[in-house]
């Protein structure tokens, strides 16, 4: 009877109030430099301490500089204080810190699975809305505010109401070249950016089963843009094989013990969901956003809808009925917690190899973690991108979002492998089209929005 979500929830429920609020055990907390100092300092000011320092981690990812040879200095005005204060607070509390220059530094949602910090059946929270990315390993991971992060740090728990659940099944085989990013954009385009409002979403079906781990992370990452509470995928042999041997994953007898329990983490055949969505994977094409919400996405061969709203049209400098293919671009960005892992970079590099970025296009690749960067360099991918005219950066969130530091210019059209195309997300007035890394790569070479050959 129980769904995967029911199992994840009930196995962490310490107590429930008659009013419907549960006290949920939290296995892992992640912080970042943007709000880490505020949370830890506010905790200390209230005379409280971190209850399980060994289960709390801090990543320097949001505002660190990503230009080669970086230091604590960052282009965001006043940004350095966030870095130094978060570092001091992390050290004072004895938390594991993935610091600037550390070989394990990177975007938290890339680093955490990479090191086996998030595991099947765990609860993990972080003051970041894309925390549900980490549910891809079969964990219950969700984004919270920094006051809630203080609660999780101080007590090892959170007070929360059990959200309603949804299952999204992608059945069938994806067409060649179609990726998890396209699956996510197709889902959000069809059901709206509030389509999964507040729900715990299980992604399932044969097309999801066939996805490698990194692609599952891309899919779960985008659930945030579907307004989900959390997203997860039942762990399977793909998951176990991927996690085995990672630094914080259990080993030896503990691995066997864990595995026996992890194999039970699946929805029962007769499990109930408040809502179910079924999508035929074969119908999904390459997707690109035209507007300022991820729900405003269309197949790359399509045209801007005839009933498109005026505001996003004006912002994006587009007209109803206009084709996206062939639109000239000024920038191309490959990176972010959505699409910056090694397979993302490899697929983009395969398109770029031996070719040149079009004149006038500023193109960047920002690996999701320092480990991804090293692995890519070991395969020579940095050379492929550099020789084509891409910048090759240190890992971090970089130009996924504009915090007053580095950005693309006003009115510039940018294709981006990130998750948000909101107004001014990548720079004041910047026109962002979100899509897969493959389409970003092909467009960078063409100088306009283009599909890979």
């Amino acid at each position, binding site marked *: 009877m129980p769904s995967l979500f029911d199992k994840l929830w009930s196995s962490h429920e*310490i*107590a429930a*109030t*008659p*009013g*419907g*609020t549960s*006290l949920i*055990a939290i*296995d892992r907390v992640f912080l970042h430099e*943007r*709000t880490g100092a*505020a949370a830890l*300092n506010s905790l200390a000011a209230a005379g409280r301490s971190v209850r*399980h320092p*060994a*289960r709390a981690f801090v990543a320097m990812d949001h505002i660190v500089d990503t230009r080669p040879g970086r230091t604590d200095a960052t282009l965001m*005005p006043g940004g350095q*204080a*966030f870095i130094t*204060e*978060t570092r001091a607070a992390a050290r004072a509390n004895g938390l594991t810190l993935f610091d600037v220059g550390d070989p394990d530094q990177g975007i938290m949602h890339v680093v955490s699975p990479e090191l086996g910090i998030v595991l099947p059946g*765990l609860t993990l929270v972080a*003051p970041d*809305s894309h925390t549900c990315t980490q549910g891809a390993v079969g964990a219950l991971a969700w*984004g*919270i*505010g*920094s*006051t*809630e992060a*203080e*609660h999780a740090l*101080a*007590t090892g*728990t959170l*007070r929360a109401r059990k*959200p309603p659940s949804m299952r999204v099944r992608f059945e069938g085989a994806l067409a060649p070249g179609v990726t998890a990013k396209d699956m996510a954009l197709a889902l959000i385009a069809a059901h709206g*950016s*509030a389509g999964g*409002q*507040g729900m715990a979403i299980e992604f399932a079906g044969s097309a999801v089963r066939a996805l490698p781990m990194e692609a599952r992370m891309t899919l779960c990452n985008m659930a945030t843009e579907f*307004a989900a509470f959390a997203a997860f995928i039942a762990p399977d042999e793909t998951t176990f094989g991927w996690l085995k041997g990672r630094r*914080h*994953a*259990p*080993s030896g007898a*503990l691995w066997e*013990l*864990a595995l026996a*329990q992890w194999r039970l983490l699946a929805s029962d055949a007769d499990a109930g969901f408040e809502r179910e969505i079924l999508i035929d994977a074969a119908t999904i094409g390459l997707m690109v956003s035209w507007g300022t*919400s991820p729900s405003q996405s269309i197949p790359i061969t399509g045209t801007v809808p005839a009933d498109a709203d005026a505001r996003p049209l004006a912002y994006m400098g587009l007209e109803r009925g206009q084709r996206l293919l062939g639109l000239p671009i000024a920038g191309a960005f490959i990176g972010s917690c959505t699409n910056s892992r090694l397979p993302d970079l490899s697929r983009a590099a395969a398109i770029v190899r031996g070719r040149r970025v079009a004149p006038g296009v500023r193109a960047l690749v920002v690996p999701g973690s320092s480990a991804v960067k090293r692995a890519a360099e070991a395969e020579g991918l940095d050379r492929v991108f550099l020789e084509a005219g891409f910048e090759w950066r240190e890992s971090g969130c970089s130009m996924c*979002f*504009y*915090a*007053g530091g580095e950005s693309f210019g006003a009115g510039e059209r940018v294709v981006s492998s990130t998750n*948000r195309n*909101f*107004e*001014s997300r990548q720079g004041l007035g910047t026109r962002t089209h979100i899509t897969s890394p493959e389409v970003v790569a092909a467009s960078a070479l063409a100088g306009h929005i283009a599909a890979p050959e």
Partner: protein
Amino acid sequence: MSRPFTTLVAIAAPMLEDNIDTDIIIPSREMKSTGKTGLADGLFAGRRYAGGREPDPGFVLNRPAYARAGILLSGANFGCGSSREHAVWALVEWGIACVIAPSFSPIFAGNAVRGGLLPLVAPAETVAFLASVDGPVAVDLPAQTVAAGGRSFAFEIDAEAKAMLIGGLDAIDLTMEQMPAIRRWEEADQRVRPWVSTPLG
């Protein structure tokens, strides 16, 4: 501890758009300090200021009628986007104690309750009616009603959120009272899932 919220009679400013995200509420470039204060100036900065720091007279909170608004009326999915709690802190610091909308992003709603801001869920028709009324809107949290222009509407709210708002309660204090149960749970869990803590040492 946040300011207790019981009843509120205030001018309600209409911003009847769906998907007002946290980047609209406070752009990330306005989050200039590592603390929780000094944020009111950055509230709706992208829309409130025309060029530089000149108030844009067309923006709702710059219109004289709404200069002292204490309630914001908005569309569905309010507070979506980035989880930044600064959105709540900026609204509260500016003087907004209640946002009335058909739905809220769950992260925003949780942050709001912890920051003493009432996220009041009302159907779009109710919000539109409240926006059409001249004069103040009255919110009574203990009675769970919102009234204006001679009409009164009941609203639903989670019992714990209600208690926390009315008492200005700190959730950590509430949970600390349950520490014996938490400890018992953790000891039992350690036997079932030893890997959750051991490899991390």
